[in-house]
C-alpha cells in the first residue's frame, strides 16, 4: 500500500478476484489503484535466485527447498519456466484443490494492503451465489475477513456486481445492472437506488475460456490467457486457430451469461414485466476485448429478457471498476 499524505486514509476498497486482487484508494478527488495477480509459482531455491528477486523487488517467500513467487511476477516466471501458475482461488472462492491457497492469498493481500492501527474501513468484494446452486461463500468470506481484520481494518464485504454499480452508475442513482466478467465468475447484480435487489453468478468466465481453449489447442491455459489479453478481439478474421477457438468460447460464455440472466429473472415470481429500461454496465478483464459489448448486446437482443436495457456500456475502467465500487462503499460507510 502506498503511503501518501494526500491519500484519504479513511477507507480502502479491495477487489478480490479469482485472477487479480486490486486495491483502490482515493487521493484528493482521484481514485488510484494497485493490482497484483492472484497467482503464484514455485521455483527451486538457490541463493542467487533469492538475491536477484530481492534486488528486483519481486514479491516472494522462501519455503524450504522452494521459492514461491507470487503476484504479478508469477506470470512471467511461469511463462519463462513453461509451467502453469498456481491459483489461490477458483470460481470466485478459495481454491479447494490448492493446499497453499490460504497462505498465498494472505501473502498477496499483504503485499497490497498495509497493516493499520486505527481500524480503517475496508470493503472487499465477494461473489454472488452461483445461479441454481447453493450459496457456499461463507468460508471464503470469513477467511478474507480474518486476513483483513488481522491487518487492523474494520471490514465489510460487498457483492462484486453491486461494486460495479457503485463504481459506474452514479448517474442513475446507483440504479441498474452491474456485471463483472472476471476470471472465475461472471457476477450480475441488479440494484435500485443503491439497494441490491437481485444478484447471482455464473461459473463461466475468463478461466473457462482459457482452459477450454487450452484443451483444444494444446497450449497452456496461462499462455492462452496472455494471448487473449494481448490480442484477442471480436468481429475479426483470424487465421490463428487459438484466436478462433477463443472466439467460440467467448460466445459460449456470453450466451451462458445472457441465458443465466433470463433464467434468473424469469424464475422470480415477484418480477413483473417492466417497461422502464435499466442501464447495464459490463466490467472486468474478460469484458476487455474489442467488440465484447456489441456481442453481448446482440445476445441480449436475441433473448426475451423481462427487463429492458436503455444502455449497455463497458465500464470506464473495466479492470478497476469493482475495486472502485468497493472503495466508494467503504467511504460511504466511513
Amino acid at each position: 500500500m502506498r503511503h501518501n499524505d494526500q491519500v484519504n486514509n479513511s477507507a480502502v476498497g479491495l477487489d478480490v478476484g479469482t485472477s487479480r486482487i486490486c486495491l483502490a484508494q482515493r487521493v484528493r478527488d482521484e481514485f488510484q489503484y494497485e493490482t497484483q495477480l492472484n497467482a503464484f509459482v514455485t521455483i527451486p531455491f538457490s541463493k542467487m535466485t533469492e538475491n536477484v528477486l530481492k534486488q528486483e523487488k519481486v514479491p516472494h517467500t522462501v519455503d524450504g527447498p522452494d521459492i514461491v513467487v507470487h503476484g504479478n511476477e508469477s506470470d512471467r516466471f511461469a511463462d519463462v519456466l513453461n509451467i502453469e501458475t498456481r491459483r489461490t482461488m477458483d470460481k470466485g472462492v478459495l481454491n479447494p484443490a490448492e493446499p497453499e491457497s490460504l497462505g498465498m492469498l494472505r501473502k498477496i493481500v499483504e503485499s497490497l494492503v498495509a497493516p493499520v492501527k486505527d481500524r480503517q474501513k475496508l470493503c472487499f468484494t465477494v461473489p454472488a451465489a452461483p445461479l441454481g446452486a447453493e450459496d457456499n461463500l461463507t468460508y471464503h468470506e470469513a477467511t478474507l475477513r480474518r486476513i483483513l481484520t488481522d491487518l487492523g481494518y474494520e471490514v465489510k464485504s460487498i457483492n462484486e456486481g453491486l461494486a460495479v454499480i457503485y463504481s459506474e452508475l452514479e448517474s442513475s442513482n446507483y440504479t441498474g445492472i452491474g456485471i463483472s466478467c472476471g476470471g472465475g465468475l461472471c457476477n450480475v447484480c441488479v440494484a435500485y437506488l443503491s439497494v441490491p435487489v437481485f444478484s447471482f453468478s455464473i461459473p463461466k468466465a475468463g478461466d473457462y475460456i482459457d482452459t477450454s481453449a487450452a484443451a483444444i489447442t494444446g497450449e497452456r491455459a496461462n499462455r492462452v490467457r496472455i494471448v487473449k489479453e494481448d490480442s484477442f478481439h471480436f468481429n475479426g478474421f483470424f487465421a490463428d486457430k487459438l484466436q478462433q477457438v477463443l472466439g467460440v468460447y467467448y460466445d459460449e460464455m456470453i450466451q451462458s451469461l445472457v441465458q443465466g440472466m433470463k433464467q434468473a429473472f424469469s424464475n422470480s415470481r415477484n418480477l413483473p414485466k417492466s417497461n422502464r429500461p435499466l442501464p447495464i454496465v459490463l466490467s472486468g478483464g474478460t469484458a476487455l476485448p474489442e467488440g465484447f459489448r456489441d456481442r453481448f448486446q446482440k445476445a441480449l437482443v436475441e433473448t426475451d429478457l423481462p427487463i429492458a436495457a436503455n444502455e449497455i456500456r463497458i465500464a470506464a475502467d473495466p479492470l478497476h471498476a469493482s475495486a472502485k465500487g468497493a472503495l466508494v462503499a467503504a467511504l460511504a460507510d466511513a
Partner: protein
Amino acid sequence: MHGVRLIPRILIEQRAATIQDPVARLRYLQRTVVARESAIYGRANRLPWLGLALLFVLILTPGYKKSSVKASFPLKPAVHALPVPGAEINPPDILPPDIIPNVWLVDQSRDFETYSNGLRVDNRYVKPNQRRIFYPVYQRDAIDAGEPEWRSEPAGIVYHTTESDQARFSADQNARLKLIGKAVIGVVQQNHSYHFLIDRFGQVFRIVPETDVANHAGYSVWADGKSIFVNLNASFLGIAFETQTQRDDMPSANPAQVHAARILTEMLRARYRIRQSNCVTHAQVSVNPDNMLVGYHTDWAGNFPFRDIGLSDNYALPPPAIYAFGFDYDPTFVHATGVRLWQGLALAEDQMQTQAAARGLPVSRYRAILQKQYKEVLAALRRAATASDNHET
C-alpha cells in the same frame, strides 16, 4: 416502526440526483432507502426481493418518467410550493386551473334524471337521511374549535369502493351481476352509506339525497385553500363504486364505471361549484383518532383514476390530517397505497417540518400541539352532535 418517516422513492431519487459527490450520494441513498425499506419490512434480509417488487411498482406507475416527475414535483416542494398555515395550500404548480364544468338538468321524471352530459341518475332507491342544515368549517390560519364557520352546501366529493362480492364481468354472468348489484343497493340504502352508487354496469343510483347527510366518511379530514373540513359526512358527497380494491397495477373500476363517475362528478361539480382539489378518495381523508394515524380506511388508496374522471391527480396533494392536525402514518398504510399517494404524504411531512421550523419548535412538539387542536375540534363536534340529538329528542 411507528414514527419512522417514509419518504417516497421518487423524492429520494430526485434529491440524490442533486448530490455531486458519488460517496455522499451513495451515503444519502443508503441512509434513506435502506432505512425506509427496513422500516417497511422489518427484516433487512428480505430487502432484495421486496425491494425489487417495489421497484417495479414504481416502474409500472403510469407516466413515471424522470423528466415528468421533475416537472410535477419540485425538489423542495415544502419550501417553494407549500406555505405555512394561513396561506394558499393548493399550489398552482401541482394542480392546473380549476374549471367548473357546465352541465345542466335536461329531463326529470319521478324515477330518473337526465343531464346535458349524458348522465342518467336512477332515483328509485333514494332513501332520505338526516337533513344537512349546517356543518362547521374551520379556518386554516386560525383554527378555533369553538368558533367555526357554518356552511350548508356540499364542498367536495369522497370516492369509495363497496368492497362487495364480485361476479366475473361477462355476459353469461348477467343474472348474478344484477342479483349482487341489487343486494348491494339494498345494503347501502339501508345504512345511508353513500349519496351515489355506481354499479358494475355504470348505472348511477342516487341513494341519499344531496340535501342530506350520508354515513360515508366517518372520522375524516380534508382542507382546501382556506378551510378545513372535519368528519366529512355532511360536508362532502359520497360516491361509491361497486367494486373491490385490486392490486396497484389492476384497475378497480371498469370503463363503464369510470365513464359514469366522470359525468356524475361533472354534474355535481357544476351544481355545487365543487373545486377539483376537493374531489378525493376515502383513503386520503380517513383518520383514526384513537391512534392518531391516517388511512384507517384504505379504499382507493393507490389507483383511483383521477385523470380519467376529469380531475387532477389529487394523490399529489398533502393530506391535511398530517400538516393541520399532526396525524401520523404507519408502514402498513404506506404499503397499502401506491406511490402516487406517497407523494402527498411526503409533501405533508415536509410541510409539517417547515411549519415546525418556522415556529422554532421540534417536530414532535409541534405535532403534539396540532394533535391537541384536533382533539379540541373533535370534542366540539361531539358536543354539538349531542346537543343536536337532545334538541331533536
